[in-house]
């Protein structure tokens, strides 16, 4: 099955985000003013026209505000009849006169309300939708849907089978870009569609018991390299986001990057059994007549028109299938099993660096391998814990919906730190005669293969040069479906002195958190497991322990109900754990082993729920 599926979604948002604040500058706030409502509907009509002109069907996500507008309702019905568009319901676009009067709040993000209000709003919005259309929707969504909310919607409105449920790596970076005033904090989720678990939206369900009953799609298909470091809202299949990033020629108004991004997503079918996916969802605020920042309306409109035209061209060439969200949910359920991972070997398509990352996501983890750092794991989310993490008013996390990390190279330093301490990363070091080299400094490239249930990354060999010894080493990384572990194999292909012995140190520096700032590490339990077990309860005392032939070295992190461990393939290895200190609030797990020419040593990084 070789398919590139596209969901195109439009919402008639009668009071677009941005429009009131940005275009209305110099006017007192009035979200009911007629000019705003008329312009909003015109934008929706333009978007629909551009999709239909290019032979593409859409999912019309009615907003609460639009349900009070007869013209918007009539348009949705007409386009459903004429073009096969799905009439769905968005939980975005709540703000309008009616909502403000009823709920007495300016909050507009559904996941941030109290659970009581979430239920009340959902019932209100779904009820109004039913009044207008005579049925309940099959698709819904927001920028983020928390698990409790999804579970409520599914229980009360079982017709819902698809939802926009997160926006990839929209978190502290987006907050920062918006002058610390845009509170969409939900890093750590999948970048492509998945079946959310009942416990945590970001963590895919491992089985039927965990299945929330919906297929989730991300808000946009985002650049898996650019978004991880920079402002995510510049690098997605949202043509105006590309303009926001100024990734276009200001003379010719051309933006090959948008097409490169779409094409790289198409290319991901190689890693996912012939399936690839794209989602385009542009809110009307991005196409308002006043322009958006330095982009005039004509450029905004051109970019959306070009985006639709490119998808339309691919469809005409038989390279794309456009689906509504509900159609996609059915397709996805048929195509994917719970444990089948989502894989993406991703190349820099913007900065000219040739840098390469590999992203892996399954019900037990999300991981990123960075080939520019010798295949180090630079991001790790332990989905195995299926962490229950309620969000919204009245919970411990009013805004922060991110799935916690164990490793995050941008927020917690990664390989490079200033002067002291360590950053989070899973890598290895080789030592010889007092010299030490970290594989993070060995830039390489990877090749993907699949053997049975294992997805394998084979890295090009690297050479480590010591003063009087050169070691040629190859890394292979195995992700076995359903195993909840990552196997890393180091293969010594060649040594300039075949008699030499080198010390290999396989290590993982980790912590936990959702933001750049450190969390309290107190109470994390570090262990060298096996006969003669050793244990350290974290107190920032910089202690270390080791055990020859350790069965495992592990850390239990109660705050995120996670146990992470490393195990080795050879009992000759020495396991060790290291506690950090206040200036380096990390822990380290590792194995050291003496290795020689042609030797292979493997370690596993294992993730479990601990509660």
């Amino acid at each position, binding site marked *: 099955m070789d398919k590139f599926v596209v969901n195109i979604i439009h919402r008639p948002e009668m009071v677009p985000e941005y429009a009131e604040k940005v275009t209305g500058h110099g006017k007192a706030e009035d979200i009911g003013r007629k000019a705003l409502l008329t312009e909003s509907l015109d934008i929706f009509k333009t978007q629909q026209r551009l999709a239909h002109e290019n032979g593409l069907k859409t999912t019309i996500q009615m907003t609460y505000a639009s349900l009070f507008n007869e013209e918007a309702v009539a348009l949705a019905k007409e386009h459903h009849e004429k073009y096969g568009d799905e009439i769905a319901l968005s939980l975005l676009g709540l703000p309008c006169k009616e909502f403000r009067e009823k709920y007495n709040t300016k909050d507009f993000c559904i996941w941030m309300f109290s659970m009581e209000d979430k239920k009340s709003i959902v019932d209100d919005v779904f009820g109004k939708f039913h009044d207008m259309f005579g049925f309940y929707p099959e698709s819904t969504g927001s920028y983020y849907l928390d698990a409790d909310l999804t579970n409520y919607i599914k229980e009360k409105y079982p017709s819902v089978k698809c939802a926009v449920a997160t926006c990839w790596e929209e978190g502290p970076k987006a907050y*920062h870009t*918006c002058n610390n005033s845009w509170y969409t904090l939900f890093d750590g989720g999948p970048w492509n569609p998945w079946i959310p678990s009942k416990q945590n939206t970001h963590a895919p369900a491992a089985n039927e018991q965990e299945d929330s009953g919906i297929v989730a799609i991300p808000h946009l298909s985002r650049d898996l390299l650019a978004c991880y470091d920079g402002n995510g809202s510049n690098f997605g299949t949202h043509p105006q986001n590309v303009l926001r990033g100024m990734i276009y020629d200001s003379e010719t108004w051309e933006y090959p990057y948008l097409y490169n991004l779409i094409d790289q997503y198409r290319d991901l079918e190689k890693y996912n059994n012939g399936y690839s996916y794209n989602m385009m969802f542009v809110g009307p605020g991005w196409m308002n007549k006043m322009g958006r920042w330095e982009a005039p309306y004509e450029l905004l409109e051109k970019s959306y028109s070009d985006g639709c035209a490119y998808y339309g061209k691919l469809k005409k060439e038989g390279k794309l299938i456009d689906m509504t969200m509900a159609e996609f949910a059915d397709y996805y359920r048929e195509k994917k099993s719970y444990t089948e991972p989502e894989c993406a070997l991703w190349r820099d398509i913007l900065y000219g660096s040739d840098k390469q990352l590999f992203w892996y996501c399954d019900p037990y983890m999300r991981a990123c391998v960075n080939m520019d750092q010798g295949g180090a794991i630079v991001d790790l989310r332990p989905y195995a814990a299926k962490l229950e993490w309620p969000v919204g008013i009245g919970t411990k996390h009013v805004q922060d919906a991110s799935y916690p990390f164990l490793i995050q190279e941008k927020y917690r330093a990664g390989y490079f730190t200033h002067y002291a301490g360590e950053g989070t990363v899973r890598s290895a070091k080789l030592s010889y005669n007092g010299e030490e080299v970290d594989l993070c400094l060995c830039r390489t490239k990877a090749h993907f293969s699949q053997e049975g249930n294992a997805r394998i990354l084979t890295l090009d060999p690297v050479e480590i040069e010591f003063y009087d010894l050169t070691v040629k080493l190859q890394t292979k990384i195995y992700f076995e479906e359903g195993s909840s572990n990552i196997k890393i194999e180091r293969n010594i292909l060649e040594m300039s002195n075949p008699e030499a012995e080198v010390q290999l140190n396989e290590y993982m520096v980790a912590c936990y958190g959702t933001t750049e700032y450190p969390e309290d590490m107190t109470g994390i339990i570090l262990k060298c497991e096996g006969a003669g077990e050793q244990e350290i309860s974290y107190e920032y005392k910089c202690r270390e322990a080791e055990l020859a032939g350790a069965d495992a070295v592990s850390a239990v992190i109660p705050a995120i109900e996670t146990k992470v461990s490393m195990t080795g393939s050879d009992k000759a290895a020495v396991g060790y754990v290291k506690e950090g200190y206040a200036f380096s609030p990390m822990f380290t797990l590792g194995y050291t082993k003496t290795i020689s020419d042609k030797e292979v040593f493997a370690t596993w990084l294992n993730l479990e729920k601990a509660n």
Partner: protein
Amino acid sequence: MAQSGKGKLNYRCPSCFMRDLDIDMFYDKDKDEFYCMRCQYTGNEKDVLEKNEMIRFRYRAMDKRITKFDFD
């Protein structure tokens, strides 16, 4: 001196953009310059547009159409 407003187009501060911050600038018509409330950047429209071109230095592959995405 009258209050500042926004110009014809709503320019962002190029200096802040370089550090991944989208900050709207305001326009001082007496001085014919845009200024940033967060940092110390000021400049007329010509200067803003020039700096916006400079911003693109990091997008070295921006004009390139790419058709191969692996290293196989």
